[in-house]
């Protein structure tokens, strides 16, 4: 009888050693590559500059802008309220509480959208949620919002609404404003007036 036990015991020990040799594939913190592929194909991570401008103007507390450019570029100019996490430091320990959180939408931006997207992919692999990329980056911000082009006369009303919003936003963010101290610009005397939607009188039969 004891022989049987010895055999079983040694079997168990063998199997236990086998367990040790199992490949370490459990990455609790990371999403699998297949899921990451699905994430990158989802274009909803891109937020338009208009949307972000509106949220900054509304002083939306649930948005956190992250400038992934170098500290030098950040110190020269950045969007109001943005924090600077250079792409190279994305994985540094000190920034993780900012990037890995709930309740706040983290919006990466750079001059274009490549570097911001790279930061987005790195953080998404780590399973962080609520991450976004500003579409077109600062280049698009400056060409679209800071220097809005007047739509042609034949454009639909929405285009004019968008234009007047961008014009107002460009004043809010400092471009196109008359000579004023920046204090005034940031004050309450500027209001973004959104046009009320006109009732669709043209519609019915």
């Amino acid at each position, binding site marked *: 009888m004891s022989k*049987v*036990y010895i055999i*079983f015991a040694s079997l*168990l020990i063998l*199997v236990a050693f*086998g367990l040790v040799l199992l*490949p370490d594939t459990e*990455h609790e913190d*990371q999403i*699998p*590559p*297949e899921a990451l*592929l699905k994430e*990158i*194909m989802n274009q909803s991570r891109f937020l338009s500059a208009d949307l972000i401008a509106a949220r900054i103007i509304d002083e939306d*507390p649930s948005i*956190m802008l992250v*400038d992934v450019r170098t500290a030098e*570029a950040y*110190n*020269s*100019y950045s969007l*109001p*309220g*943005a*924090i600077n996490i250079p*792409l*190279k430091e994305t*994985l540094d320990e000190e920034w993780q509480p900012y990037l*890995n*959180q*709930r*309740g*706040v939408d983290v919006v990466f931006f*750079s*001059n*274009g*959208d*490549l570097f911001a*997207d*790279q930061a987005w*992919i*790195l953080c998404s*692999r780590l399973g962080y949620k609520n991450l976004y990329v500003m579409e077109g*980056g*600062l*280049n698009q911000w*400056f*060409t679209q919002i*800071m220097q809005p082009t007047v739509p042609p006369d034949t454009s639909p009303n929405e285009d004019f609404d968008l234009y007047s919003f961008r014009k107002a936003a460009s004043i809010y*963010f*400092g*471009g196109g*404003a*008359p*000579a004023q*101290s*920046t204090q005034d*610009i*940031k004050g309450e005397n500027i209001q973004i007036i959104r046009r009320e939607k006109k009732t669709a009188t043209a519609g019915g039969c």
Partner: protein
Amino acid sequence: MKELTKTRRLTIASVIFVFILVIGFVTFRSPDFVYKLSTKATLEELTNPANIVSPVEAREMINGTKSGAVMIDLRNTYDYNKGTLFGAINIPVSDIMEKEVIEMFDDWQMQSKTVILFAEDQQAANAPWMILRQLGYSNMKVLSGGYAIAMDQYTNGIIDSTDYQYNGERPVMDFAGFIQKMSGGEVVKPNPGPAQIEPIKRKKKSVTAGGC
């Protein structure tokens, strides 16, 4: 008699135990895809200029003296049919982890063939490249600028093999100067407001994971 049942129970229990473990080993399936690169290593790869190929270099690698590279068009089939670069193979982004495609990638890696990925712009090719790079394909490169800029260079004959800045990251203007000029005042230095941090509390790992 009592002694006998006791030992039999023990035997049955241990047999079942071993049996379950054996089944576990047999049915253990390793995941199809595993990251070969850590996030830190990936971050370093992002700044490695060897991973970016300029349009002119790409032409060299396909047609010229350094031929032997493979071009992969990551755009959708509709755009691909309208025109592509150097007889590139069309693999839409959604298909890059299909079994047949991965087999192809494995072959090319075995033959240490350079694979150049491109899409409409560099940013669209970057994301699939990052995934494949993290899966361990070190022979993959990204076409700087993408299809539109490459076509423009080939047709208009702009040759600038040293410029890698087709990625849209070059500022279109002096932002600070623009703001200063328009506002007539000083540029507001970015002042990060108090960022609310709501840290995610990690689930406590069970104590048993710790060993002795």
